[in-house]
């Protein structure tokens, strides 16, 4: 048998938006408990409230973040299982020194690609992951990539336009 089946009591290491965090495991407000989701840790422990929680059961995509290059649902992920992982949230897209918005964020503003805005961080993270892998997607590919992000204000038409505008084809 490899390794020891011991309960974890060591530190948890996360990289969020390029910043490294070492979090203790425990039940204090600055610690991570086994039952904490990544969405909870980002919002409540690290104060990164840009990531939203809507359905809290993996259906709506509002809590989407990028982990090691792939979009995941932070509400359905246990923080304790993210040790050593690198996470990008909506707060990590703007330039850290100039604070200039990511071109994708600017495109959402330019196209008014939101109404209430609650689903927008998740929409942008899904679109960002797509553009990183495929900088010149077709409209169909944009729709596929955003198939897991629900908007109850019906902002989708503007969202697709914004993502297309932010792709390299339009530059």
């Amino acid at each position, binding site marked *: 048998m490899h390794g020891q*089946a011991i309960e*974890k009591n060591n530190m948890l290491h996360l990289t969020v938006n390029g910043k490294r965090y070492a979090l203790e495991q425990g039940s204090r407000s600055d610690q991570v408990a*086994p039952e904490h989701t990544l969405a909870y840790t980002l919002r409540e422990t690290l104060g990164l409230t840009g990531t939203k929680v809507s359905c809290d059961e993996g259906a709506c995509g509002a809590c989407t973040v990028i982990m090691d290059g792939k979009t995941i*649902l932070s509400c*359905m*992920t246990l923080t304790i299982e993210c040790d050593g992982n690198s996470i990008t949230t909506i707060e990590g897209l703007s330039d850290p020194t100039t604070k200039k918005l990511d071109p994708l964020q600017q495109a959402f503003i330019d196209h008014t690609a939101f109404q209430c805005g609650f689903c927008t961080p998740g929409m942008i993270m899904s679109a960002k992951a797509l553009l990183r892998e495929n900088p010149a997607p077709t409209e169909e590919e944009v729709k596929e990539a955003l198939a897991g992000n629900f908007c109850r204000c019906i902002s989708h038409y503007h969202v697709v336009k914004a993502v297309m505008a932010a792709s390299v084809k339009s530059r």
Partner: protein
Amino acid sequence: MRPFTHYDAHAVEEALTLLKRYNGRAVLNAGGTDLLSALKGEYLLHYPEAIINIKTIPDLAYIREDGDMLRIGALARLSDVVNSPLLRKRYNALAEAAYSVATPQVRNMATLGGNLCQDIRCWYYRYPRHIGGPIGCLRKGNKACLAATGDNRYHAIMGGKGCFAVCPSDTAVALAALNGRIKIVGTRGERSVPVTDFFHPLGNELKRGEMVREIEVPRITGMVRQTFLKFTLRRPVDFAIVSVASVIAVPRGRCREARIALGAVGPAPVRATAAEEWLKGKPISEATAAEAATAALTGARPLRMNSYKVEIAKTLIKRALTS
């Protein structure tokens, strides 16, 4: 979520030892997309004491052909199944079935093993605590099935026995048409069962302390046409109302072999053996496809609200055969 003890297993043996130690009070976690619903909704009668993360087990996410067998490790992500050049080329029904699951984010998290082991979607069974659940039912070890007399529009039209929930796994349907088997491992050794036998009316083939290790599919050779079709109300997110996977060989215009599996119609994927036999030696046309569809659904016994599923199943079979 309520507190639990958490472990990272670094080997299959370690996961099995922990399962044994907890004797039914621990559950395995792979992608987590189904398990976390259960933990948040508290719709089961017992909350697990421990969660055993198996994502930390190395080398269990492979997709490879090995002699005359395709082998997929239980931890292969659905997105890996979708994007595998090997699967897209030779086992396309499985790649398409994986692609039909949920959303891009869920496919990046969920594993093939987890997709096969996921819990049923019956709305009585999954009624969450925060709105008055959990509801006891036959599957939870007490009382009768509420869907049998209640709202059963999404329940079984064949094979239901006591519980009328359907198998929610899309990949299971493709694997059933591909003659796939599921390799199960426990502290007492390994065994393998056909995918169609893995699902039982009240649960699945896994006994206490066992886990799925691998999915095997006999190597596909020669010219075969594979299809996976899924009927849902919305294209993303929704579970199948009915799905069909087909693997057919039609050399020189006559059907040599047809394998047709129906999904979301019963507790397990159902192979339409009568239709498969009937098609042998016949040309594939609108007429023969319609006959095969009728033959496939002769055994259907719909409940009060779901006879519409019979018609959808027939239509999907016709489309799958003639596509």
